[in-house]
């Protein structure tokens, strides 16, 4: 049974008449001249490379410690420089507004007073952290590292699918994908002027330095991981070593008189900035989950006293929650006085009875998500789901409609991708990584995720998606 939607998808390499788009011309010529079997051979080589380097992730629910590779696709996704510059402006604008929103709701709440967003939406949100009320952060930045997920539906139409302001991951794949491509196809990089991404770790380090408490001249920075069984552990270790800072676990840190120290072979050493990849809930057992063994007792107290910086800050989840997402265009207008450059996906709120009625009547066409879900877990993709799956999901919705939002099934653009049958179009999205310190920085491109099964629209690695190298080329 083929329930693949029959819309016309935007193919990023080929125009509707089959002609190769300008930006892919040179690559297509190279591809056409490639001897048979070369791509297959290089694909195998790439996989060996990734496995040997141990670039793996763990999948929750599988045997403890099981490691898998995220499939790497060796056909690059290409953007033109002008196209990218437009995207970049929109992404920066969005992140600026999101940080302004976070500062505002944890201080004077002007946006609530102005009636743009309700007090209920903010203050009753499970991810709102009352502990953060009135806490001043350097540069008023809360989300130092943001991942903004974008999908393309037409030549000039991009939508923001979601904002990731807590602990977005995937940047190590962006960097390793580029390294692998350069190793496999040096000739492509000689013939194309690809914008570099390799300086990301330096930009991250600069951003973390700027996040330090303002009285610290030469801050000690660490990356904090939940441990080697976390699905993104490879990335935590990778970023720490690329920046030349310590990779710590909660058990390596302790708080003494509102200052954070790490246990070293020479005794305790004070830490000033923690790039933490541990969720809010687990950070401090004295304040949040008491059963957490991943955190540091007293960390929140030290943080609120201004003796240590956390990146990202505590309480950013209230701004990337899927029900708050709806208000981001309003935030841009409210804080920046600008028109949003990137659009939101039209979204139905199932807490509203009109929306709920419509959605329940159209489930087979829609995508339904949990408001606080992430990673592609627990969502319904109507067009590719069976009747039974749709009915089961309907029951879930009815028990707590306010926990869900629905969106039309987007016609995600496709990119040529190496699959068993050869090179074929597959759906992709894009996650650029946005760094906010004294200024907002990002490297050109980001992580392209690709749904490897034919017709699939779910690109998450936890759901069998792969990744591609993303090129921004001079036009």
């Amino acid at each position, binding site marked *: 049974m083929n329930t693949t939607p029959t819309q016309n998808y935007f193919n990023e390499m080929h125009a509707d008449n089959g002609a190769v788009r300008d930006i892919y011309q040179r690559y297509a010529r190279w591809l056409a001249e490639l001897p048979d079997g070369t791509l297959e051979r290089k694909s195998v080589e790439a996989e060996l490379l990734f496995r040997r380097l141990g670039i793996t992730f763990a999948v929750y629910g599988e045997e403890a410690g099981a490691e898998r590779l995220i499939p790497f696709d060796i056909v690059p996704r290409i953007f033109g420089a002008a196209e990218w510059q437009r995207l970049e402006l929109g992404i920066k604008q969005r992140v600026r507004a999101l940080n302004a929103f976070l500062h505002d709701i944890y201080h004077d709440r002007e946006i609530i007073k102005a009636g743009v967003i309700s007090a209920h939406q903010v203050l009753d949100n499970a991810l709102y952290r009352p502990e953060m009320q009135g806490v001043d952060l350097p540069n008023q930045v809360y989300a130092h590292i943001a991942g903004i997920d974008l999908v393309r539906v037409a030549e000039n139409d991009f939508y923001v699918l979601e904002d990731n302001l807590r602990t977005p991951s995937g940047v190590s794949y962006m960097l390793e994908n580029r390294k692998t491509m350069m190793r496999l196809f040096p000739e492509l990089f000689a013939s194309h002027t690809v914008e570099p991404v390799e300086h990301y770790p330096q930009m991250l380090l600069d951003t973390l330095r700027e996040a330090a408490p303002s009285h610290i001249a030469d801050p000690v920075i660490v990356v904090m991981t939940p441990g080697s069984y976390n699905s993104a552990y490879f990335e935590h*270790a990778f970023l720490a070593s690329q920046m030349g800072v310590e990779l710590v676990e909660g058990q*390596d840190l302790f708080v003494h008189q509102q200052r954070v120290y*790490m246990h*070293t*072979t020479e005794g305790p050493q004070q830490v000033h900035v923690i790039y933490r990849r541990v969720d809010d809930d687990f950070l401090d057992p004295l304040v949040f989950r008491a059963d957490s063994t991943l955190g540091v007792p007293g960390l929140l107290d030290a943080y609120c006293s201004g003796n240590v910086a956390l990146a990202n800050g505590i309480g950013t989840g209230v701004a990337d929650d899927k029900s708050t997402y709806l208000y981001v265009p309003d935030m841009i207008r409210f804080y920046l006085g600008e028109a949003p450059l990137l659009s939101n996906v039209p979204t139905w709120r199932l807490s509203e009875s009109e929306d709920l009625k419509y959605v329940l009547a159209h489930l087979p066409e829609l995508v339904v998500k949990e408001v606080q879900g992430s990673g592609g877990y627990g969502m319904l993709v109507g067009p590719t789901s069976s009747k039974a799956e749709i009915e089961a999901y309907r029951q879930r919705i009815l028990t707590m409609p306010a926990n869900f939002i629905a969106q039309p099934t987007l016609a995600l653009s496709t990119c040529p991708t190496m699959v068993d049958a050869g090179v074929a179009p597959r759906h992709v999205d894009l996650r650029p990584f946005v760094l906010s310190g004294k200024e907002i920085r990002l490297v050109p491109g980001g992580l392209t995720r690709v749904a490897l099964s034919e017709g699939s629209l779910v690109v998450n690695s936890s759901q069998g998606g792969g990744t591609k190298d993303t090129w921004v080329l001079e036009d």
Partner: protein
Amino acid sequence: MLSRTADNLFWMARHIERAENTARVLDVAHRTSLLPLDIEGTEAYLWYAPLNITGCAAGYEVKYGLARADAVTRYMALDPDNPASIYTCLRLARENARAVRGAITSEMWEVINATWLELNRLSRHMDYEKFPDYFDWVKDRSHLFRGVTLGTIQKDIALSFIKLGTFLERADNTARILDVKYHILLPSVHDVGGAADYYQWGSLLRSVSAFEAYRKIYRDVISPLRVAELLILRDDMPRSLHACMNEVEAALIDINGSSGREARRRAGEQHAALHFGRIEDVFKQGLHEYLTGFLAHTDLLGREIRDAYLARRDRFGAMPLRSAEQVQKVS
């Protein structure tokens, strides 16, 4: 350096070294089993040695009973349930390495990771005749790891903790091999110079890569006294107790720090005893008694090192911090 990082580096190195030593012990047992040995219950007698050296005789007996060549080899080479098997050592080495990927070079990580991946491609039911190749492979991977380490890592205290783990483990192992082997070989000590004896002692020397050196240094029949001298007191033998303690003491001096005073004192004391010791005195005391004493000292030294550097000290009892404050109050 983070205490946990130091701990992982130390144990990464120890487990690699332990895997190599276990391969050496099993290899020599294999070679010995090919020789005629005129005592009762030869097989069990011979194959208890590797179990005793690695301290896993009890676990083995529960599972298999009497020591048999095939079962002991499998149990110690590939059994994931044996906490002292080569398989487990290589797994733990990788786990420790994985926890400190940022503190080791990517080349070191790749050697350890590739070793682990290759190990898992090997069949658990390897043909018995294939084991000598397997032991060679384990030794090769260990040599490769050490070479890659020295060739790529920065000479800072990370390397010192790696050396500390390597040489403490090696000292421990050489002492055990000598002790256990000495007992097995005792029945033929009166027969010094006999052909069987020559092979017995020869295989012991080969297990610690010291056969050629023995020939070169002594140019004479193999005698227990000289074997013991070579493996205990000669500081130019890379696996002798003296050479190992040279490295341990040097590593501790490089690491230094305010908290390791007792560890440095112990290492220095043990090193001095080897430096100025005479083999005649060792034998006067009794080789077994001497080696037992050495192992006890090494164990204490290991504990000192753990307490001084590797353990996360109690959250509120972090001594250096408190004393720093007291100094500030006075001034």
